[in-house]
């Protein structure tokens, strides 16, 4: 990947004046939104909540007049490269195309650019070809880097632009760093955090960061409640991010069946590899959802479930603590398999005796969801970036001589 900084031409010869004039020009560009916000995104084509949130933020900014671009480093496809090289009799490199179609409307109109050497053709495993370009990042531009990519943070050290970390998980922050390293080592202080939990965590492990809180929303057009007469007595679940997480999830399910043999007729429905619409449909037709994400930075699944009037039984990871309470779900201490299995049984019992059909249950869900509306999300993003613009202008003004 290459980055360059453009030179802004000025007609002034006095170096101090020239310096100040350049700064004024940069400030003017920021004021008039004539700058770019680059979102670095790992190129995952399988559905990922984190990538969804990143794209959603980019889309909101784009809809509000900001110039946004998604950048990614194409992943090498060794198998396709080998096969193509064999066929052509020369070395050919093939890359995976980043095309997160599962995001549907969030990617509409957003430029997604592969990084690479200027004007080189990048061949993708879907047969398409694209010209790579080195990005030209200017002082007025912003670069947004997800929290788990310190290599990218390091990469941008010498680029005099605004660098902001987008923290969607607490778990990967220290895992990705060497002992003693922190983001300030690369001159980065600005962080957008998606939950109170992450903010608290960062304040403890890296005091002194400037953290802004981003309020997420649940798409109520997709996540809609179904009539109780159209729901199935089944429990939706997502097996987990890792093999270990999946093993734990299945252990909860088997423990539940073992504790409650009378509920062996209750089915579990794995939500995996689905488009957003299919995911919402399956979640909505389920009576309950089992939530086993121990490391969630925020955890949208419980909120999406509440929007579908699907009752949540789950662990209470750090990220979700801001919205989890005894009225809106059956919450077990993070990682406690036995308690979660027991709570599943209690929840199923309450469901089949009709206790969860009471209006007060839905009212409680709505009370929780009030905090996570589309309007609040848009307002919070616009507010955050307006503040960043002002802060950047202030920083630049301080550089004047």
């Amino acid at each position, binding site marked *: 990947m290459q980055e360059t900084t453009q030179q802004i031409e000025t007609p002034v010869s006095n170096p101090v004046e020239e310096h100040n004039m350049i700064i004024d020009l940069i400030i003017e560009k920021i004021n008039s939104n004539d700058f770019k916000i680059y979102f670095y995104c790992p190129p995952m084509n399988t559905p990922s909540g984190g990538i969804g949130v990143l794209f959603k933020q980019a889309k909101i900014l784009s809809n509000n007049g900001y110039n946004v671009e998604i950048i990614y480093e194409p992943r090498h496809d060794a198998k396709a490269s080998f096969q193509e090289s064999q066929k052509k009799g020369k070395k050919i490199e093939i890359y995976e195309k980043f095309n997160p179609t599962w995001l549907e409307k969030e990617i509409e109109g957003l430029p997604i650019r592969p990084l690479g050497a200027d004007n080189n053709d990048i061949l993708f495993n879907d047969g398409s070809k694209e010209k790579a370009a080195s990005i030209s990042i200017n002082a007025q531009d912003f670069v947004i880097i997800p929290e788990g990519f310190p290599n990218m943070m390091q990469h941008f050290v010498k680029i005099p632009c605004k660098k902001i970390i987008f923290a969607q998980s607490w778990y990967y922050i220290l895992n990705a760093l060497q002992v003693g390293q922190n983001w300030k080592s690369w001159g980065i202080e600005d962080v957008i955090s998606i939950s109170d939990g992450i903010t608290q965590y960062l304040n403890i492990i890296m005091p002194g960061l400037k953290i802004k809180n981003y309020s997420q929303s649940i798409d109520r057009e997709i996540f809609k409640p179904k009539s*109780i*007469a159209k729901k199935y007595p089944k429990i939706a679940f997502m097996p987990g991010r890792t093999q270990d997480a999946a093993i734990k999830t299945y252990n909860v399910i088997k423990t539940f069946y073992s504790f409650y043999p*009378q509920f062996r*007729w209750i*089915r579990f429905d794995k939500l995996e590899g689905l488009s957003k619409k299919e995911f919402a449909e399956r979640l909505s037709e389920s009576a309950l959802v089992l939530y086993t994400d121990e490391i969630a930075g925020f955890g949208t699944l419980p909120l999406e479930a509440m929007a579908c009037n699907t009752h949540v039984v789950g662990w209470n990871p750090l990220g979700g603590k801001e919205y989890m309470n005894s009225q809106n779900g059956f919450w077990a201490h993070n990682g406690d398999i036995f308690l979660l299995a027991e709570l599943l049984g209690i929840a199923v019992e309450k*469901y*089949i*005796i*009709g206790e969860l059909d009471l209006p007060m249950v839905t009212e409680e869900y709505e009370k929780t969801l009030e905090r996570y509306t589309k309007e609040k999300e848009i307002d919070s993003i616009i507010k955050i970036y307006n503040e960043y613009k002002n802060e950047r202008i202030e920083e630049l003004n301080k550089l004047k001589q």
Partner: protein
Amino acid sequence: MKELKNLTSLNNKELLLVLPVNNLEDVLLNECLYSIAEQTKAVDLLVLVNNLSDQEIETLKNIIEAPKITLTQKDDKGEITHNEINSKNDINYTIEKSNSETFQKIFNEAMNYANQNQYKFFSIVEYDDVLTKDWINKSMFFASEREDIDVFLPLIKEMSNGVFLGYFNEASWVDGYSEEAGFFDTPLLLRFNCMNITGSIFKTQSLINKSENKNGYYYAIKESIKINYAYEFFLRMLYEYLKMYTIPRVGYEHRIDRPQPKVNYFSSKIPRDITIKTPEQGGITNEEYSFWLALAKKEYFYDTDRNLKFEPVVAKV
């Protein structure tokens, strides 16, 4: 079948609940009627009495008009207390005398009453069972949302002498048992006799359309079948494409294994020891039991009652 002139419908003739009574068992009747009185939706109750004296009917009326239950609790000192709780609600009811001495006949009579009096649905509750508080309301909500369905079955809590045995009617929800989740079908029912007739809510017209009509009286259940008649009935109705669905909510507590000196054919509950009981006690032989079971599995192809009888095989010497 006559018009129920003494019963003004409180639920717009949506549902007729039928309670057959042939024996005055005070505690059980009180519990059953309390559960009816406590329903969150208005109920029209038809009590069909068989073989009760006028005095017994008077006693029954007194229970219907003030059903009560007794709660046994420990007080602050740890001593056991018995608190009587009376229902605050009145039951909208009428009592009719019936000549039906078996459950098959009672069921057909109940259906004919519902039909004659233009009730959209009917359901039978036995006096030693109880309904859950919101069952009528919940089932009517499901019925309004799923108009294509002919029979709504509750999840049943199977209780044996106060001990919870498990759920019943749940088989339609078991993964891989039926073709469509929640709905019973013939292969499932041939595999397991897994549907309970009491507590189920029947769409009157759907059953009438599939019943044998003899001089304007309809026979949904074949009265000549001594036991397993409900099995044959459900198999036949499924064969006739009626849609039967288990509402995934507990609606009915089915109390079985009550010690009884004689088999009570007025009830749908056939005791497990029926083959041990003597003929005087209403018992039948293993051979006869197997006969009726096999008959149920074959006879559902016929839409009329062929009046088949059990003929014991006489061993030749």
